[in-house]
């Protein structure tokens, strides 16, 4: 007779101690929150969006005067492989992601490493509305009103030392929250990176929301970066760790297919992807294709970062 033994608990199933202990905090906060609700009849703003938390955000002069892509398209057509490789997978499956509680650990070559709580981080600087173009390496583009503040605000607080030449961004890698990471499509966790001067550039946005509301899970809740002059995959989502490094970070797509996805990956209509042209793009919602702009139209602000560099070599 076949006796089935119940399987042992695999290590990955065990809740890490920190998380386990955090549950008390969560329960306590939830209790306080509920009590607060009962007393004031209002939701605490950052925790559960009652109304849109960034509705009154200051409009940034960096915004483009182009028609924004409809909210529905921005939130249903996504590349977020942690939830599957189909464009509609993230919208369908990202419900398992828990954007609260959330911490972001800032570490590496810096004087003041710190573990930030997401709600504390959000108050670090004034959240603005920035309407940016987003160009995907696959040949489509959107215009998205993001809510965030310059990444430089956070970088400055950490006081990076002289060895800090690059900034690495690491996405959450939790198969309980992200079904897509069970498949080795990419070498998880998702890693992205910027050179220090790129990270300090005023256009590089630490982003918490879009369309005035908190980021939907499928768009990289609760915190992501947006680097509008680079292909979309450079803008890491659901970040848990930011690390200052001396050497160039080994980024996820570069590791996967090095001859197709470089570290820089600046939007460049003159340098084709080995398998398709980058000269044109289809703006989501439009019928015809439009010409892709150098640095996605942000050349005036960022071209100087790459002065003297061969952009065919550093693609």
């Amino acid at each position, binding site marked *: 007779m076949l006796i089935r033994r119940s399987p042992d608990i695999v290590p990955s199933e065990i809740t890490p101690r920190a998380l386990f202990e955090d549950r008390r905090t969560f329960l306590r906060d939830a209790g306080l929150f509920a009590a607060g609700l009962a007393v004031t009849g209002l939701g605490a703003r950052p925790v559960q969006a009652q109304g849109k938390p960034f509705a009154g955000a200051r409009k940034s002069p960096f915004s483009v005067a182009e028609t924004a892509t409809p909210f529905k398209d921005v939130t249903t057509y996504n590349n977020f*492989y942690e939830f599957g490789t189909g464009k509609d997978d993230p919208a369908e499956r990202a419900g398992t992601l828990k954007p609260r509680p959330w911490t972001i650990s800032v570490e590496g070559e810096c004087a003041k490493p710190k573990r930030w709580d997401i709600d504390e981080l959000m108050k670090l600087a004034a959240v603005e509305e920035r309407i940016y173009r987003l160009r995907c390496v696959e040949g*489509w583009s959107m215009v998205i009103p993001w809510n965030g503040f310059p990444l430089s605000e956070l970088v400055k607080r950490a006081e990076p030392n002289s060895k800090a030449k690059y900034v690495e961004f690491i996405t959450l890698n939790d198969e309980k929250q992200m079904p897509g990471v069970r498949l080795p499509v990419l070498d998880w966790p998702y890693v992205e990176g910027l050179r220090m001067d790129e990270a300090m550039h005023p256009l590089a946005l630490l982003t918490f929301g879009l369309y005035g509301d908190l980021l939907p899970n499928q768009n990289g809740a609760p915190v992501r970066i947006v680097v509008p002059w680079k292909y979309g995959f450079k803008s890491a989502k659901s970040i848990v760790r930011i690390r200052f490094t001396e050497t160039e970070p080994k980024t996820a797509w570069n590791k*996967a*297919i090095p001859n197709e996805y470089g570290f820089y990956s600046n939007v460049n209509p003159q340098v*084709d992807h080995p*398998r398709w042209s980058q000269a044109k793009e*289809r703006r989501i*919602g439009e019928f015809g294709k439009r010409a892709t702009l150098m640095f996605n139209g942000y050349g005036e602000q960022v071209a100087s970062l790459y002065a003297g560099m061969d952009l065919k070599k550093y693609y």
Partner: protein
Amino acid sequence: MFVACLIPLALLALRAWRDQLGANPIEYITRATGWWTLTFLMITLTVTPVRRLLSMPWLLRLRRMLGLFAFFYASLHFTTYIWLDQFFDLAAIVKDVVKRPFITVGFTAFVLLIPLAATSTNAMVKRLGARRWQWLHRAVYVIGTLGVIHFLWLVKKDIREPLVFALVLAVLLGARLAFRWRERTRTASASAQVAARPG
């Protein structure tokens, strides 16, 4: 059967009508028509092995229609690319076909399908003669392979779906090799028996 083969197109039209093609409808249509082209190619290639394995000779009558539907969906796929995707930008299309291996391969497969569709009538079979006709129509093995490569090369990283097509194709082409090998050994042993018969 004819109606059944039109269901994928009807579903696509229904989705378009209901505005359910997602944020990038042109990409959706291109993907769907391409997927159905490959699927009809595979179904067409399944006819012969199944017919022989299960001794269902009547299946042969379906093969032509299935093959023509593969061509039909390939034409829709090609038209979507030329019209909706590139909007008749001939320079861009030529550049694509010459420079992008996955488009070169897909385009070649489509061009190869044309003579097969053109010679699908009974009259053409007669005019060519069964032998030459069959020789010509073996091009479908090449077309199927090119079609799968076309899919494989366009995918960014997750190659599971094209691999499924590759596996199906390998089984279908492998079945043909197996039949051939069996026939050869059978005729060989038959002639050996004839030779060994006492005089």
